[in-house]
């Protein structure tokens, strides 16, 4: 039996906690995360709830739980959409080569010049800030990443003997891609999916820190940090919890991705 790598253990554990508390926050949080309680204003951990209360007395622990749902929701949606589009372009480029491959390379170069915050500034002018702007801005940046990964992986599969056999059996490019290429690159895509979701959480936090993310009062980790900056000298504890939550979530997803890679690609493990 294969030993489960340490990073997969840790990553799996943290990611499960993240998803678990995010889902749980839909049904239960210690306090209502958007309820003001001015008597608890800026109280420290222990004095009001596990992690204290913010500038209008909302329970920080409950906000962290609910903020996880926001972060994960936006990052996952963006990664699923951007990842699907990118993978579609990537596997098609690998199958077709020629002009389509060149064109997809150009599209990638253009998209690559738009990191999420830049897209969000541009889209913010068009759509205004909000969840949709965040999802599109983050999703757009996922496209070139997945195109590159899936194209590279798919090209390797296309050079295999069983593809030749499938071609001789009269299967078309689309059918070969669906039946042989996609299943064989799915492990690599899954690894990338975990890592990119982590990056999506980082990007979402950045956007809501700048006030370009999901609208208040929906709790979000980035905006909690933006609010905390205002009270940094009177209530420094407010700076800690959201930052640790973001870092843990991204760390967990990265470890999960690395662990899955070690598990599915033994050669890489030896090399690293």
């Amino acid at each position: 039996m294969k030993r489960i790598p340490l990073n997969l253990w840790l990553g799996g554990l943290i990611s499960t906690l993240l998803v678990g508390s995010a889902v749980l926050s839909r049904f239960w949080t210690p306090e209502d995360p958007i309820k003001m309680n001015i008597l608890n204003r800026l109280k420290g951990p222990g004095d009001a709830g596990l992690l204290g209360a913010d500038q209008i007395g909302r329970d920080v622990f409950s906000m962290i739980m609910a903020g996880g749902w926001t972060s994960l929701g936006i990052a996952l949606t963006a990664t699923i959409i951007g990842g699907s589009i990118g993978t579609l372009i990537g596997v098609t480029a690998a199958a077709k080569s020629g002009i389509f491959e060149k064109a997809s390379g150009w599209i990638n170069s253009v998209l690559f010049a738009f990191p999420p915050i830049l897209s969000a500034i541009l889209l913010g002018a068009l759509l205004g800030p909000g969840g949709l702007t965040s999802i599109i801005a983050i999703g757009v940046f996922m496209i070139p990443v997945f195109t590159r990964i899936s194209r590279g992986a798919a090209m390797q599969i296309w050079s295999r003997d069983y593809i030749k056999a499938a071609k001789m059996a009269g299967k078309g490019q689309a059918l070969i891609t669906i039946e042989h290429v996609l299943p064989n690159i799915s492990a690599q895509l899954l690894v990338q999916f975990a890592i990119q979701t982590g990056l999506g959480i980082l990007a979402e936090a950045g956007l809501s820190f700048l006030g370009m993310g999901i609208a208040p009062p929906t709790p979000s980790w980035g905006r909690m940090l933006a609010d905390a900056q205002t009270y940094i000298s009177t209530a420094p504890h407010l700076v800690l919890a959201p930052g640790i939550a973001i870092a843990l979530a991204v760390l967990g997803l990265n470890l999960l991705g690395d662990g899955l890679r070690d598990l599915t690609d033994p050669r890489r493990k030896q090399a690293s």
Partner: protein
Amino acid sequence: MTPALKHMRRAAGYLLILLVTSFLIFVLIEAAPGDPAEIMLGTSAQADTVAALRADLGLDRPMMVRYASWIAGVVTGDLGQSYTYGTPVAELIGDRLAVTVPLTLLATIIAICISLPLGVWAGSRPGAVTDGVATVFSQFGIAVPNFWIGLLLILLFSLSLGWFPAGGFPGWDDGIDKGIMALILPSIALAIPQAAVLTRVTRAAVIEVANEDFVRTARAKGLGRNRALWLHTVPNALLPVVTMLGLQIPFLISGAVLVENVFTLPGIGTLAYQALSQRDLIVIQNVVLMFAIIVIVVNLIVDGLYAILDPRLRTRK
């Protein structure tokens, strides 16, 4: 095909990409709600005054004409007037670059100073304690948002210890040392995630090259461990590191927007961010294009550096 011709073809490709990018930006800004003339004059303005200003700004011309005149302006350095500041956009961007360029350069230098020794050290003895330290550093560095590092640095070095200013920028006229002091904490915040990524890449590259035949040959010929490492392994491991440096530029730029916001630095990121809240569309349009140009040009330079760092690529088709 001669190498020179190949480079020219590549440059032409990048130029085309830039044109497509600029058109995309133009169309998106064009579709954005809010008429610049109405924004400038306010809601109480008379219709004919608005129309006159529209004609004055050239907004009544067909879209393609305006696009062409924008691109001509970009080439000649005339980017138009900011709606809210009333000053030329090119001047605004130039002023702000005097903060953002030193910030990102300083961050890149710090990132290289951390990651190169750490990555080489870790990669030269995989599995050792130093390797573990480097791995933990890079995992955490990648996961931690730079604006949060910024907040923690302010908490520790500005509010508790009082060694550095908590934010703001005195400008370069008061002396370079004051300007640098104001940029140290922001550039550390910006550098740590970069350093984490670069450490990881350097480590992996060193491990891979150390297993190559030419390193083994050098060792077999009696070259010491460290000499083989620094003379043969490291120079050959630099290629993926340089690639990553180029690939990180978009993250460096978005990071700068966030870090400038934390430290209230009057940089280009703050300019773009404020332009968004003031609906100064012409500023957004030009700043976004400038960022895109930087990313694309850096990629072109990275492509060119390949040929210098890896002679094998010069002759390869």
